[in-house]
């Protein structure tokens, strides 16, 4: 097998996808976004619970999707969690509100990485570099981002 494929399937993406550690719907979500990849039928729904101040209280997702999509959702959950809730509240300040623009920027950065740009992967998303040579799979990776953006752009549920 070629090196690219080996790298992809030996990356932590596969184990992330197997563990599905963060999967689960939020019964008390304030925002929800579901998207589908019509080419393969893969689907993912992302739930977010924001506080009145816009801070992330909780988030979850549910996916009928391939390993790359699930892994990407896991990485995204991690990131949101780290950056917008726990990290900030540990320092005692009030948690930063999560804005659609933040996700747009992140999605753009991920897209650049996939398209093989020279920019380094955003912190925490290094594993996605291995998907770059697999053009037909890029959409698998970006699907959770689309769902999350859709969730935030949605009015409160």
């Amino acid at each position, binding site marked *: *097998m*070629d090196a*690219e*494929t*080996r790298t*992809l*399937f*030996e990356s932590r993406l*596969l184990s992330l996808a197997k563990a599905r550690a963060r999967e689960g719907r939020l019964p008390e979500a304030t925002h929800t976004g579901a998207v589908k990849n019509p*080419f*393969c*039928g*893969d689907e993912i729904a992302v739930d977010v619970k924001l506080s009145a101040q816009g801070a992330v209280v909780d988030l979850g997702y549910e996916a*009928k*999707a*391939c*390993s*790359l999509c699930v892994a990407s959702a896991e990485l995204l959950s991690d990131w949101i969690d780290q950056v917008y809730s726990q990290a900030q509240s540990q320092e005692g300040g009030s948690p930063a509100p999560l804005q659609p623009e933040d996700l747009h920027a992140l999605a753009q950065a991920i897209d650049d990485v996939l398209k093989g740009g020279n920019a380094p992967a955003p912190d925490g998303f290094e594993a996605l570099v291995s998907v770059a040579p*697999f053009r*037909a*799979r890029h959409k*698998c990776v970006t699907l959770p981002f689309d769902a999350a953006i859709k969730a935030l752009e949605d009015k409160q549920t």
Partner: protein
Amino acid sequence: MGYDVAAIRAQFPTLERKIYGNKPLIFLDSAASAQKPRAVTAAMTDFMDTTYSNVHRGIHALSQEATDAFEAVRGKVAGFMNADEREVVFTKNTTEGINLVAQSWGRKNLSPGDEILVTELEHHANIVPWQLIAEATGAKVRAVAVLDDGALDMDDFHAKLGPSTKMVAVAYVSNVLGTVLPVEDIIKAAHAQGALVLLDASQAVTHRRVDVKALDVDFLVWTGHKLYGPTGIGVLFGKYDLLDAMPPFLGGGDMIDTVSFQGTTFREPPYRFEAGTPAIVETIGLGAAIDWVETVGIEAIAAHEADLLDYAMDQLAAANDVTVFGTTPTKVSVLAFLLGDHHAHDVGTILDRTGVALRVGQHCAEPLHTRLGVHSTVRASFAAYNSRADVDGLLDGLSVCRELLG
């Protein structure tokens, strides 16, 4: 004389492709669309280089030659499925053919309370057009259940077929399971209830001889690109009297009798349903594809594919981690499966890198996947040009999948 697969492969330039550097292509995606033999591309190019002109419209020599060549293919297509020439409507693909019947026949003949019977295993092309016309007319679409082995649930069919059924629209052969449906029984039962039958023969004409007269089917549709022919051309067969009673579908040139702002009248079938400049070159290519298939022999192709299917099924059965969907005895060489609990996409990605081209996902049959309780499947399909070596290549590729996916 045996089936000389090497000689057949030599007629398909694409099969010489190397991918990912130096990997020979193992093309197992013919159910999505077949490769084209040189005879087809050459017929199209020759026609464009020597005879091209619009048809049905000119009195000059080229236009006459082009029209003759075009209409000769109508005769060839009619012969291929044992229809009359005037029962052959050229469309752009299967999808347009089904929409044509749904819109033209349906708008005239469907009312609230009427039912259209489809099955759970249909391609979206044989579901969505009926949903659209049902919404427009107040009719209802009902779906016959599929059994676990991929057979149609004939009890459910008979239970759902009734005096309200106006149209039974079913696949002749499933594009996922390969199941050949008992269409003779379906047609007889439907006719006994006064319902018409449309067969989606997209995956049937490529694997068996189809005879519309013996079937006594009302409408039958298929698409050129799966029969080693060009894209952009499909066929709708309709019994003449049915076609003749149907209003036009698209309006435009060639389908009219006389046009005025006081009122326009329409031509007889099949022309009434062929508005605008047809896919002339593609029709010529379709004629060449039929010639090619008939030269090899559809029965010979079918026998060869059946051998490949048996071989593949045996090998996959030997591997304990492969689940095959569609295991009826009447099955053509379309083979959907899953490897362990791995997502079809991951399997497909790895197979692709080993040179094996096949399709993963829902294959435009989402309700069937819902029924099967799986999100997606891997589908290998075998055509005239595939060999046992291709099957071996698939199995080797699956070993790589096991290694990488754990």
